[in-house]
């Protein structure tokens, strides 16, 4: 079973993400609502991937990603940035960071597990849990 860490300061978004990823893909979902919490959980739980919100108070998604990249223990964890910033300039900025992928907000909770699985090459994982 895949283990995925979702990082978002908004309760409603975290809860929709959890519902989607648990119910449709059967993945184990861990949650963080701040960047600091995300780094700590990533270090200790070693998730298979991190779904990281861009705009959070305090440490934003980019700062979290850079910290994860700076540690040998977390730099190999794939990170998907979740963002409503979808202007071409934003896309250009994100493309230089080394993220695994960028997913736009709003997202379709029905399609999301398949999207993540495709982006990360987990194509057989977005299935109904046995």
């Amino acid at each position, binding site marked *: 079973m895949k283990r995925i860490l979702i990082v978002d300061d908004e309760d409603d*978004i975290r809860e929709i993400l959890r519902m989607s990823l648990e*119910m449709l893909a059967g993945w184990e979902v861990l949650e963080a609502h701040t960047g600091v919490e995300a780094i700590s959980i990533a270090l200790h739980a070693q998730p298979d991937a991190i779904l990281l919100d861009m705009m959070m108070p305090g440490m934003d998604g980019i700062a979290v990603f850079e910290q994860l990249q700076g540690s040998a223990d977390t730099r190999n964890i794939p990170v998907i940035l979740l963002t409503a910033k979808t202007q071409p300039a934003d896309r250009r900025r994100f493309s230089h960071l080394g993220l695994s992928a960028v997913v736009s907000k709003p997202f379709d909770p*029905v399609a999301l597990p398949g999207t993540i699985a495709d982006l990360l090459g987990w194509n057989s994982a977005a299935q109904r849990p046995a």
Partner: protein
Amino acid sequence: MSAGDSPQSRLAAPLALLWRKHYGTILERVAVLEHAVDGLRLDSAISSSEQLLVESAAHKLAGTLGTFGSPRGSEIAGHIERLFSPDMVVDEQVIIQAGPLISELRAVVLGLALAYDSTTT
């Protein structure tokens, strides 16, 4: 897999529950926008902190409404977010544009609420 076992149908009831749980917060965010425009109509000025508050409320609505099934709601909220971004001067034109957008946004939210009310949980 039967039609009733589709991913859409499996998420329908839990998504409706989450909508009901967070509906109050969504309405509060719309109210932040309405309050700001009402204030602007009175004195045509907005503090930088209130502008940030409005941008943040609009940003959150833009991320949430489409996920709950209203792409139009996200589109409107995104437009409002850009009108109130910190690099924008909030002037008469912004007030003229934002007023109808915020009215439409409230209508979209109330429409979503009606749709979710009819979802069996």
